[in-house]
C-alpha cells in the first residue's frame, strides 16, 4: 500500500505539507475566521489551541472538507486544493478524527476501517482480505492485540479512537487532524495515544492536534498555532514558549492563579451524605462521606467506576448493597426523581446526551428540573433562573436561544444553572470542565468555591489530575470499582496515580 511512500518522505522533515492562507469563514453573517494562516510540515505534530469559539473547529472542518472557506487558499504539497466533501479530503490524504466517533458500533473493526471501500473478489466482499489488511495496518502501529473481527461496541473509548486512526491511515493519510483526542481517555490510554502519535510522526505523517490540555501540547507538539476570536495570534515552536505565555496568548490575559482559593469563612460542616458499603454490578464496598462546605474529589482511571458512583448516588444504577444516609438518616434513592427531591444534583459527564435538551431554549433547559420535579414550587423558584444564568456570565443571544448553538462552556453553564435552581444540598459534578474553554473552566471553579462557602457538599469526578489536586479538600481514589484509598488536600498527582493504578498502595496510604 502507500505505507512505503509515506516512509520515503521522512527525510524531508522541513517539507511544507499544508499551507492554508487567509482563510475566511462566516456563518449567518457572523465572521468566525478572519484571514487565518496555517502551515503544517511533514512529520510534525502541530497543536492548534484557543478558547472555545476561537475558530479551531471551523478551521479543522474547512481542512476536512466539511465546510468550504469563503476566502483564502489551501495548498497541499504545493498544489491548490478545494475540498467539497470530506471524502475528497480523505482521498487526498487529509483525514480527521472528530470528537464524535464516526464508527458503527455493531460492525467489526475491519468492517469499519474499510466501510465504503470493502475489497471485493468476483463481485463479493472478500472478508478475509479485509481482515488481513486491517491486521496489517494494526501490526504496523504495534497494535496487533486488537482483533480486526471484534465488534467496535466491545472496545474501550481508546480502542475506538485507534480504529478511527487506523481508518485514516488506510486512506494513506498524510495529514491527520485530531479534535481533542484525549477528552474521553484515561491517563493510561493517553499514554497509548502518545505512542501512536509518535509512530505516525516517525513515518512522516503530519498531525494537527487540537486540545485544551496544556500538558499534552507541551508533551507532544513541535509547533503550536494560537487562535483567538477567529484571528491568528501566533505560530511558535513549542520549545520556545512557556505554558503561562501560551495561556496569555490564548485568553489575552494572564490567569494568575488558575484554581481559585477557598473563600473566607468556608469550613467543613456536618456530614451531609454518607454511603456505607455501597455496591452493585460495577462497585463494591463504597464508603463515602460528603461534608457541607467541602469538595471531595473522586479520582481513578477511566473505567474504575467513578461515573458509576455518581449514578448510584443519583438512583440511575442504584446500589444493591449497602446504605445511603442523608443528614444521618437512611434514605432510599431509587430514581433520579427521588434523588432530586432529596436535595441531590448531578451534573452529568456527557452534557449533550444527558444534560441538555439541545433543541430547546436556554430558559427551558434551565427550568427543566424545576418543572419536572417540583412543579408546585416551580413558579416561585423559576423567577430566580434568569438571575442564576446571568450570575454565571452566560453568553447567549438571549434566553430563548436553542442551547445547541452555544459553545461548550456556555452549555455547561446552562446545566449548572438548571441544578442551582433547585438549591441542592449535595452536588455531584461528573467531569465538570470537560471540553470547555479556559475562561469557562475558571468560572466553574469559582462557582464551586462559592457553593462551598454556602455550605453545599460537593463530589467532583475528574480525570484531570491538576483539577483534582487544585480543587479538592479530600481525594477519594477508585480502582476497579473499589475505593483504593483516600488522600488529604495537598497530595501530589503521583500519589493519586499510585493509588489509581494499584501500585505501592501501602506506602501512600500511610501518609
Amino acid at each position, binding site marked *: 500500500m502507500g505505507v512505503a511512500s509515506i516512509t520515503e518522505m521522512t527525510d524531508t522533515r522541513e517539507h511544507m505539507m499544508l499551507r492554508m492562507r487567509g482563510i475566511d469563514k462566516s456563518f449567518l453573517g457572523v465572521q468566525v475566521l478572519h484571514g487565518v494562516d496555517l502551515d503544517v510540515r511533514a512529520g510534525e505534530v502541530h497543536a492548534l489551541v484557543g478558547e472555545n469559539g476561537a475558530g479551531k473547529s471551523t478551521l479543522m472542518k474547512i481542512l476536512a472538507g466539511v465546510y468550504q472557506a469563503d476566502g483564502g487558499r489551501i495548498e497541499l504539497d504545493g498544489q491548490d486544493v478545494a475540498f467539497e466533501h470530506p*471524502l475528497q479530503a480523505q482521498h487526498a490524504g487529509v483525514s480527521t478524527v472528530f470528537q464524535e466517533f*464516526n*464508527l*458503527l*458500533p*455493531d*460492525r467489526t473493526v475491519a*468492517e469499519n476501517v474499510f*466501510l*465504503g*471501500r*470493502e475489497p*471485493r473478489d468476483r*463481485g*463479493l*466482499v472478500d472478508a478475509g482480505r479485509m481482515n488481513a489488511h486491517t491486521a496489517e495496518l494494526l501490526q504496523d502501529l*504495534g497494535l496487533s*492485540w*486488537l*482483533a480486526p473481527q*471484534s*465488534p467496535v*461496541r*466491545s*472496545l*474501550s473509548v*481508546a*480502542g475506538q479512537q485507534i480504529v478511527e486512526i487506523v481508518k485514516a491511515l488506510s486512506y494513506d493519510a498524510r495529514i491527520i487532524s485530531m479534535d481533542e483526542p484525549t477528552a474521553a481517555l484515561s491517563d*493510561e*490510554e493517553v*499514554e*497509548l495515544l*502518545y*505512542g501512536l502519535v*509518535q*509512530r505516525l510522526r*516517525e513515518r512522516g505523517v503530519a498531525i494537527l492536534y487540537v486540545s485544551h490540555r496544556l500538558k499534552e501540547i507541551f508533551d507532544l507538539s513541535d509547533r503550536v498555532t494560537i487562535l483567538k476570536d477567529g484571528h491568528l495570534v501566533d505560530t511558535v515552536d513549542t520549545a520556545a514558549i512557556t505554558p503561562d505565555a501560551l495561556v496569555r496568548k490564548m485568553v489575552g490575559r494572564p490567569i494568575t492563579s488558575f484554581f481559585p482559593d477557598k473563600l473566607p469563612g468556608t469550613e467543613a460542616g456536618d456530614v451531609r451524605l454518607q454511603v*456505607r*458499603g455501597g*455496591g*452493585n*454490578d*460495577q*462497585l*463494591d*464496598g463504597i*464508603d463515602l462521606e460528603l461534608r457541607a462546605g467541602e469538595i471531595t474529589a473522586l479520582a481513578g482511571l477511566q*473505567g474504575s467506576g467513578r461515573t458509576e458512583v455518581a449514578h448510584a448516588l443519583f438512583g440511575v444504577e442504584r446500589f*444493591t*448493597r*449497602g*446504605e445511603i444516609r442523608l443528614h444521618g438518616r437512611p434514605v432510599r434513592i431509587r430514581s433520579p426523581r427521588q434523588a432530586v427531591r432529596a436535595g441531590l444534583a448531578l451534573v452529568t459527564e456527557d452534557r449533550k446526551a444527558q444534560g441538555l435538551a439541545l433543541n430547546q431554549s436556554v430558559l427551558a433547559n434551565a427550568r427543566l428540573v424545576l418543572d419536572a420535579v417540583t412543579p408546585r414550587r416551580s413558579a416561585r423558584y423559576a423567577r430566580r433562573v434568569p438571575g442564576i444564568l446571568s450570575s454565571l456570565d452566560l453568553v447567549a443571544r438571549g434566553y430563548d436561544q436553542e442551547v445547541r448553538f452555544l459553545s461548550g462552556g456556555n452549555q455547561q453553564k446552562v446545566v449548572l444553572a438548571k441544578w442551582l435552581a433547585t438549591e441542592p444540598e449535595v452536588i455531584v459534578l461528573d467531569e465538570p470542565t470537560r471540553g470547555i474553554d479556559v475562561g469557562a473552566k475558571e468560572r466553574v471553579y469559582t462557582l464551586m468555591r462559592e457553593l462551598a462557602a454556602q455550605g453545599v457538599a460537593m463530589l467532583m469526578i475528574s480525570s484531570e489530575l491538576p483539577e483534582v489536586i487544585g480543587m479538592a479538600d479530600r481525594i477519594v481514589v477508585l480502582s*476497579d*470499582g*473499589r*475505593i*483504593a484509598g483516600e488522600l488529604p488536600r495537598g497530595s501530589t498527582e503521583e500519589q493519586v496515580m499510585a493509588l489509581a493504578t*494499584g501500585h505501592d*498502595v501501602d506506602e501512600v*496510604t500511610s501518609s
Partner: protein
Amino acid sequence: MRSGTRPTGMSRTANRVADVAEAPTTAIRRRLGTTELVYLALLGVMVGGAILVALQDKNLFSTANTVEMLSRSSLLGFIAIGQTLVILCRSLDLSVGYVVALSSLVAATTMDGDPARVPLAIAVTLLVAGGIGLANGLIISVLKVNPFITTLGMGLIIKGYLDTEYKGPAGAVPESFRQFGYSRIGFVPVSAAVMLLAAVAGILYLRKTRTGFHMYAVGGNAEVARMSGIRTGRVMVTAHVLCAMTAGVAGLLLAARFGTGSAEVYENGYELESIAAVVLGGTFLMGGRGGVAGTLAGVLILAELDTIFNILQVDPFFKDVLRGVIIIAAVAIYARRRLDVRASRARFGGDGGADGGPPPEPPPRHDDDPARPHQGGVR
C-alpha cells in the same frame, strides 16, 4: 525516540486496553448471539407445542401439520425477508400488505387463464411491485419524508385504487402456475422451498455484497455511512425495491393458491405481521443490526404457533392475545440484552448481595486491603 525509554509502560498500557477490548468479546462468546437465541426459542416452541399437542393424542410433526406450518411460513416469509432489508436501513414498509394484494391481481389478470402468459405475468408483477418500492425509496431518500408516513401514504393510495377498481376477485391463474401454491416435494411445499432459497439469497446478500454491508451502515448511522462515501440514497432505494419485490412474490403465491387475484387480502395485516416477524427474529427496529437468518426463525415461530393454536383449537381472539404477548416479550428480552452489554462487564457478580447473599469475591489485588469494613451483604 520515546518508545526506547518506555517499552514497559507502553506494553502495560496496551495490555490494559486489550483487556478492555477482550473481556466483552469472550463474554459475548459465552453468551448466545441473538440469532442463536431465536433459533433456540423456535426449538422451544416446537418442543413445548409438541408436548401440548401430544396431550390431545395428536402429532405436531405429522406430515399434514408440517406441511401446514411450512405453507403458512412461506407467504409471510417472502414479505418478512424484504421487510428485514428496509428495517436494517432504519426504514420500514407499511405498504407491503397492499402491494401483496395488488400483485395478486396484476398476476391473475395478466395470466388470464393462459399458461403461456405466466412468464409475462411474473415479470409484470415484479415490475409493478418494484416500481412501488422505487417510489417509496425515492420519496424517503430524496424528498426526505419519514418512512412511516411515506409507506403509510403509499399503502392508502394502493388501497384506494384497489377499492375502486376491484369489487371482487379478478383474473384467473392457469393450473400450471397453481402448482407453485399447492405441489410439494416430500413434506416440503414448493413455495416454502422457494422461500427458503430466497432467505439464503438474502443472507448471502447481506453478508457478501457491498450493498448488503452498506445497509447495516445506513441503518447504523447514516451520517457515518455518508462520510465514508456510501451513496446512502441508493442503498435505501435498493432496500425498498427489494422489499416491494418480495411482497410481489408473496402476491404471486397468493394468486397461485387462490387461483385468482384478490384485493381483500390487504385486510390480513401482512405489513404489521412481517414487522413483528423481523423484530421477533432479533433485528433491531432502529436499524443497523440483525439479519435474514433471524427473520426466518421469527417467521417459523409465528407459523408454528399458528399451527399449534389451530390443532388445539384455541379461540382466534385469544390466539391474537397470545401472539401479542409473545412478540412483546421477545422484544423486551432483546432490549434487556442490549442493556446487558454493560452487565456483561460486571465486576461484582450480578445482584448476589441484593438479598443479603454472600459477598462477591474481591479481586486478588485487593486481598490485603484492610480499608473496607463493609463488604457486600449490608442492607
